[in-house]
């Protein structure tokens, strides 16, 4: 399981990285950040990039900072950066609660937040977070930077809106109001495995009822998305078991599982129902 040959590039600035990528993209060039998803695919020879653009040397991609009302996560920020809650507040708590579900400790020291988004595995926790919070993804190419809303970013199974010569330079997550509650639930066969289902619930309580609900489900469809029907079932209701059950049921009905075999699709809906309810119950 040795990778096939490739030409290796190691730019040291963002401009260089973008320039090199524009040259090699048409010749099957790929970006190498953490490599925790790409290199296994190369070992199995299901990925055969002729060029690898290693961006680990680009200092600017290490940015992890508040910028305005957003949390900016640069292309090379590792999963491990979120082991401690950063930034302060509900967003940081959410990210550190989620990160421990991602693979395992050594994978998290190398793998990157943006790399997960670029790879777009349907069972990626960060993809669920980005979709549920309506993150903005910043793509960079020789044509310049552009901002892509999360709802426009995921296009299909492991397919994103990034052009082949575009590099995901940054993800921007909205800083959440201080009274935001977040709950995350994931079910997998073993600890650290790809999830069979995951759900993220985010809401505030205003005058005793749920406001600004967000409910996202991942690992069921081709990509994670907000479940509007579930959110509608929560808005304006007290945060209580009956509301949570209604939201869970609405999510289960609205989902269109990627695995279309009847028995597996039914199981996925069951799991989604459970996951949404448990995420809501866990929200703090």
């Amino acid at each position, binding site marked *: 399981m040795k990778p096939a040959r490739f030409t290796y590039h190691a730019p040291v600035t963002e401009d260089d990285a973008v320039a090199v990528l524009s040259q090699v993209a048409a010749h099957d060039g790929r970006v190498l950040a953490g490599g925790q998803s790409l290199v296994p695919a190369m070992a199995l020879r299901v990925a055969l990039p002729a060029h690898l653009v290693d961006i680990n040397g680009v200092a600017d991609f290490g940015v992890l900072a508040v910028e305005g009302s957003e949390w900016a996560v640069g292309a090379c920020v590792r999963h491990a950066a979120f082991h401690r809650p950063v930034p302060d507040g509900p967003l940081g708590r959410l990210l550190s609660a989620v990160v421990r579900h991602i693979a395992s400790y050594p994978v998290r020291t190398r793998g990157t937040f943006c790399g997960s988004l670029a790879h777009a595995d349907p069972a990626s926790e960060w993809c669920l977070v980005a979709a549920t919070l309506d993150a903005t993804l910043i793509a960079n190419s020789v044509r310049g930077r552009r901002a892509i809303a999360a709802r426009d970013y995921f296009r299909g199974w492991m397919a994103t809106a990034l052009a082949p010569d575009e590099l995901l330079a940054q993800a921007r997550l909205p800083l959440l109001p201080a009274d935001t509650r977040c709950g995350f639930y994931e*079910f997998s*066969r*073993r600890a650290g495995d790809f999830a*069979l289902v995951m759900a993220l619930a985010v809401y505030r309580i205003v005058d005793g009822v749920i406001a600004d609900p967000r409910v996202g489900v991942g690992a069921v469809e081709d990509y994670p998305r907000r479940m509007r029907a579930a959110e509608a079932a929560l808005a304006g209701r007290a945060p209580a078991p009956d509301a949570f059950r209604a939201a869970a049921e609405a999510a289960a009905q609205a989902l269109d599982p990627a695995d279309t075999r009847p*028995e597996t699709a039914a*199981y996925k809906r*069951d*799991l989604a129902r459970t996951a949404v309810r448990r995420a809501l119950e866990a929200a703090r």
Partner: protein
Amino acid sequence: MNAEPPRGTNPPRDPTADSRFIGRSVPRLEDLPLVTGRGRYAAGISFPHQLHMRVVRSAHAHGTIVAIDASTALALPGCVAVWTAADVAAVPPIDFRATRVKGLEPYRQPVLARERVRYVGEPVALVFAEDAYLAEDAADLVAVEVKALPPVVAADQEPGVFMPGQGTEPTVIRKNYGNVDAAFRAAHAVVELDLALGRHSGVPLETRGAIARHDAARDVIELYGASKRPHQNRDLIAAMLGRSPATVHLYESHVGGGFGVRGELYPEDVLVCLAALRLGRPVKWIEDRREHLMACNHSREQRHRVRAAVDAGGRILAIDDRFFHDQGAYVRTTGARVMDGTAGMIPGPYRVPAYRVAAHFRLTNKTPAGTYRAPGRFESTFVCERLLDAVAARLGIDRVEVRKRNFIPRTDMPYERPLEVMETGLVLDSGDYAGLLEKALARFGWDATRADVERRRATGEAVGLGLACFVEKSGQGPVDGVRVTVDGTGAVEVVTGVASMGQGVETVIAQICADALGVDYRRVRVVHGRTDRIEYGFGAFGSRITVMTGSATHAAALKVRAKALELAAADMLEATPEDLDIVDGRIVRRNRADAPSVTLAQIAKALTPGAAIAKGREPGLTAEGWFENDHMACPYGVHMAVVKVDRETGGVKIERYLVAFDIGRAVNPMLVEGQIAGGMAQGLGGALFEEFAYDENGTPQSVTFADYLMPGALEVPAVEFLLSEDAPSPLNPLGLKGAGESGITAVGAAVASAIDDAIGMPGAVTRLPVTPQRLKDILNRAR
């Protein structure tokens, strides 16, 4: 040659054997190199100018080979040669180890596919290149054109065609005693089950590897990376290459786990030897993980339609089983042993007055199967214990009680079942099944745990208890022999014909030798896996080493001891041998601390050839010891589990797990517990996680560790151990039984039993592994 002690009695403990080391959890002699990175596994073995071999494997489950085009591969710089079946036409198919089952010869695997491919992963061609990366590049360029044929993917459907004139059911093994039909007619109740075990296997953490070198100067082929059965493999390889066994040497270095699947003779082992011979350069082959999961022996997959007739008290009157064993595409070295073993062991530790089994040996277009830890017994225990639970449920009898009613009592030991299993008779040599169950119940706190579980269930938790009883086989003979030698420095060497895959062979044999001889175990070096150091060897499998090699070592060490005492008494110490003892390598007078003494080193020096022969003695402080045993020692035990089921997801968590186990006599309790714990983890894999799945085209779905799931530290519970030495084996002087397999044997059954209890549905689990989706399906159907 040992005289067999009278049946049913424990032999007196050898009065000259001081138990300074046997029975103690001494640290392992193996460990220091392994914790410092000085282990030498196959991948770490390299020779100058070596070529790397890469196997081109079939991507089709079944088909005829139309053409193989290697031209592009050969054009790649660094690719030295490409071979197909035509290049190895003179090499016969891989034979079985001795088997008495007739009619299996046509189903042997050729070293490279000839005319037909029969499983995805079958070796079709070989590439030889300057390095492993290039070899893989070249292998990808070899174009294999196959005309696909419909695959057989189920062992219990109509048999297919293996080749013109041969169907895919090579044999049916039938066993039968007592009057089964009469028993069913007279039965108070009959339970009938349809049970299935998923395909899974040992999957050691080190993949296979073989490095061959032809020493042209001496015309000797050397093969490194050997394991399990070096001498037998040497003999097979030599025969297949038309050479004398004396011109083939196998070397075992460090081995990353065996579990029964590594060390059988595979095509690659023979091919590297032939390649080294023909290409004139050392040839190195290291399997990758994807290959391993589709090429190394699979195991376990069977489907049983079984019924039991019982009386009103739940006592078994008869068992009747018809099952299908999914052997995969070919019959490999182990022949039909796993199926035969299953068939013979289904009655377990119970009195079964009448029994009938029809075992259908079926070939399918999947990776061929072989022996995997507790082969046949993981399967048979699942079947038997599901039956006992079904009987309990049907008659409203407690699951523990029904087992007690059916156990063979201690007073009936040794108990001969009128069956042959793996070609030896089945005699349960010693055992107190009911006694061990009582101890296990007490240690586990069965009654208190059940009360606690019921209390939790009342609050809505799906939590349950399960148990499973089992009998194992160990100490496979028929013989073993070692040579023990003390050199002029007092160091002791035991040369064995066994193999080590990490289980602690060197330590256990050293402990036995040390006690018999009177030295510190740390002065004993154990040699294994070297066909050039000892003429006969029988390898490592079937938990045989402690029993067979241990007993042979004990015998040899006693002979060396006797030689040393005889010479010391006659020539050096003016005493009789009875006056003397050996303590820490020094021969001393008993009860006379101040008397003169002499060391074993001095004795060894006194036995150098000149000195020895002058005094009419044989040179060398050395002796051979043999142990013969045509029956297997049968350890036994109980597994108990508490599991919690998540009714919404189908997830299963093991909260507690106990293994109670009779070891006969534990040489090193820490190592025994290590074997049990490791076996339990593998058993858990087979119960909940591991499966080689195939689609309807015969394409394997579990080809990486992302699909083939093995338990990790958060899945495996802390195992509680109850080691019992109540029933030493009467079949060898030290009372030993083997420990390697008892941790795994009953896990499938115990976990199934506990899951049934947790969800309140007796008999719910009929299929392993119990995946979350399957369990959820069971729960949904119940609603």
